[in-house]
């Protein structure tokens, strides 16, 4: 690819992806296309803003997946992050602007951290710019934490998720679909590509990351139960699922060398599975809030939920099974607590799914307009892709088949049934939650406002500096310099410069 380097920036290199990355690229592209199709008939206002942001973000997202060098990756990542701002604020309402502000603040902050991290990585690799060359360089604590923070702010796992439950509900449904399906995955992709597996420092940090995975998984699911807006619930579900994805990544990092390829595949399968079902769910939620749900829509809505709860026959069952299997083989094999935690996680996910279903039923109004057929079509494509995942991904079939054994059915089935019972009891039998617990306001909005007040002062602080009498002198000096003494001063400076230089040289 030497021509690219001379034509574009130094080190520029793009390649058609292969192996797991190709699948990643494939589902990302599918997501963007379906979201585009859905927006085509449903976005009616501020089209220029929407489509310019949409296409730029899409280009950025695809670019970062194709890039083989650091700069190309960073360009794509920055383009995607910053243009997504336009998607978040698209509606122009107060909530959207607040969410957009928070998103932009964190995105820029994340970009800065990421840029610093990438510079450090390139420096550690002696100036090599290809991503593959960075794998050999050892990590330092600073680089690792910068990478985790920079990419984590995009990936949105706990506790870096704070923008996510704000931005997703604010954006239009197809935009939320790509935000949750494709863009937050890009953060994970970055972590995967830029943190070399088997690094000594990383292995030391892995247990802590494991804690992060599970806290994210539980935190997301539990917080979701407190909210009553479907898109917020879905956003928290993404936080929770990002915990599992991070777990898959941690397992990839910790897996022995001969098992690494399989672990990488599992990570991508999980990402693909979640991307498809989550975007389908976001389209469903968006449809439910502004259109009439027809009867087949309910079927199309149910399948992603089934997949989310990892019931047998779904891709979710296969990847969850793979995760469990892998957990039993890596360095965490003798951590006896982990399978139990996974089961509790499944229970909480099932609770979330029931909660979501109840909310959707509650919100459904048969009087709204009919969904345009192109939008229905794109939604259907996503659902079908999710449904048929085990069929077109032949490598996934063994796992899928193992999950379909009686033991698997039992293991996957009882949390869902128990969750149904628990949810019914919580809603109808038990005591309702105190009102102050419902729909809690995120403290992040307050922090964002505070940050804004730091750089956008309207108070007396700005006027009080510099002190008034100093200001007067400054003005007098300016006036003297620019009005009266300019010509003599400038011409004598001209001569003085010549003279001085002659004397000094």
């Amino acid at each position, binding site marked *: 690819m030497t021509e690219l380097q001379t034509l574009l920036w130094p080190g520029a290199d793009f390649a058609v992806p292969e192996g797991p990355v190709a699948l990643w690229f494939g589902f990302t592209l599918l997501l963007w296309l379906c979201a585009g199709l859905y927006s085509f008939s449903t976005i009616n206002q501020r089209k220029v803003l929407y489509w310019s942001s949409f296409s730029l973000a899409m280009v950025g997202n695809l670019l970062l997946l194709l890039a083989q060098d650091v700069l190309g990756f960073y360009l794509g990542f920055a383009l995607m992050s910053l243009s997504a701002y336009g998607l978040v604020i698209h509606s122009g309402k107060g909530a959207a602007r607040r969410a957009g502000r928070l998103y932009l603040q964190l995105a820029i902050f994340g970009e800065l951290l990421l840029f610093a991290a990438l510079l450090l990585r390139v420096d550690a690799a002696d100036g090599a710019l290809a991503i593959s060359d960075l794998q050999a360089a050892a990590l330092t604590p600073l680089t690792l934490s910068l990478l985790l923070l920079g990419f984590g702010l995009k990936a949105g796992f706990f506790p870096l998720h704070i923008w996510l439950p704000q931005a997703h509900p604010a954006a239009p449904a197809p935009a939320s679909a790509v935000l949750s399906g494709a863009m937050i995955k890009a953060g994970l992709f970055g972590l995967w590509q830029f943190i070399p597996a088997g690094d000594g420092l990383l292995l030391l940090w892995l247990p802590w990351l494991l804690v992060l995975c599970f806290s994210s998984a539980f935190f997301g699911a539990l917080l979701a139960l407190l909210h009553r807006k479907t898109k917020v619930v879905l956003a928290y579900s993404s936080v929770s699922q990002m915990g599992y994805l991070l777990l898959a990544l941690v397992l990839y990092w910790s897996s022995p060398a001969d098992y690494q390829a399989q672990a990488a595949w599992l990570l991508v399968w999980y990402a693909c599975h979640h991307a498809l079902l989550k975007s389908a769910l976001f389209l469903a939620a968006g449809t439910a809030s502004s259109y009439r749900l027809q009867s087949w829509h309910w079927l199309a809505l149910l399948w992603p939920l089934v997949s989310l709860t990892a019931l047998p026959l779904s891709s979710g069952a296969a990847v969850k099974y793979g995760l469990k299997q892998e957990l039993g083989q890596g360095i965490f094999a003798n951590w006896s607590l982990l399978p139990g935690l996974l089961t509790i996680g499944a229970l909480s996910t099932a609770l979330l799914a029931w909660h979501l279903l109840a909310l959707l039923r509650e919100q459904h109004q048969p009087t709204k307009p009919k969904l345009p057929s192109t939008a229905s079509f794109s939604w259907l494509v996503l659902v079908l892709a999710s449904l048929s995942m085990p069929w077109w991904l032949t490598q996934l079939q063994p796992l899928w088949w193992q999950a379909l054994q009686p033991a698997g059915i039992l293991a996957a089935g009882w949390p869902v049934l128990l969750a149904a019972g628990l949810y019914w009891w919580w809603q109808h039998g038990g005591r309702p939650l105190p009102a102050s617990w419902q729909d809690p306001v995120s403290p992040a909005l307050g922090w964002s406002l505070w940050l804004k007040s730091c750089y956008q002062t309207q108070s007396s602080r700005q006027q009080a500096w510099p002190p008034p009498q100093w200001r007067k002198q400054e003005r007098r000096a300016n006036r003297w310099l620019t009005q009266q003494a300019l*010509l*003599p001063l400038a011409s*004598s400076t001209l*001569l003085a410069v010549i003279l001085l230089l002659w004397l000094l040289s």
Partner: protein
Amino acid sequence: MSGDFWFDALLGLLLLLLALATILARQLAAAVMLYVVFGLMLALAWARLGAADLALAEAAIGAGLTGALLFSALARQPKSLAPAQGAGRVERLPALLLCSAISAVLGWTLWQLPLQPQHSQLPAALEQLGSSGTEHLVTAVLLNFRAWDTLLELLVLLLALLGTRLVAAPEPAALQHWPLARQWSKRLLPLLVLVAFFVLWRGATAPGGAFQAGALLAAALVVLRLNGQLPALRFDFWWVRALILAGVLAFLLAGLLSLWLNWQPEQAAQWLRWPLPLAKGLILLIELSATLAIGLTLTLLVVGERKELGA
């Protein structure tokens, strides 16, 4: 000590003295007058240094035209001006020290210059003079060897006119038309125009050329206009514009013509390369149009009508 030596010594000292007096004179009018005298003396010095062309040009352009411009600016100055005109007072002593230091450094550096130049473009220019289309070296340099400079210089002149029009300076105070002056200008002017074209024609072989001729022509036109013997000249008249642009246009057309004549498909084009048989004609054409353009432009610069512009 020969007479020549004393003459040069005195002339040099006079130049310095006149310059100093120009700067220090209390009255601006005196300063302008002194500057005109300085210009004439400078022309004399240049004639002493073997630059007859330049002496002519300096007398016509440097002293004559600049003087006319300065006087007309003086006439336009409002009377009710505070002496300092809002300009900042400068500490005299540091400025004096700075300038004398600069002068000394410059003098010292000039003193170091070799009396026999290491290298000069003169031999090359003399060698090529035969194929330049003119016999006079200065004209050859101006209109052939470095014709691009001259074209750009005509553009500078044009720009000065455009800028002056934009400024819309106030009218000079109304002038009295003396009957005597009118008679004199009537008698003298045909002669002046004749001299101008003679200078132009002579430029092909001896000192003289478009700029000197243009300046003389401008002098004639200015005098006529000031005596009210010429109708107002306005940039808005199409023929005035055409004449002013004539120099540049003739240059460009000659250039394009020679581009076309010299065109060879596989070679890079040659800009401003006059084909040898046409060189003399082209140079004369350019000189003639340039003379008219320069004459008219300079006239407009001194006595151009400014009413049309508004503030």
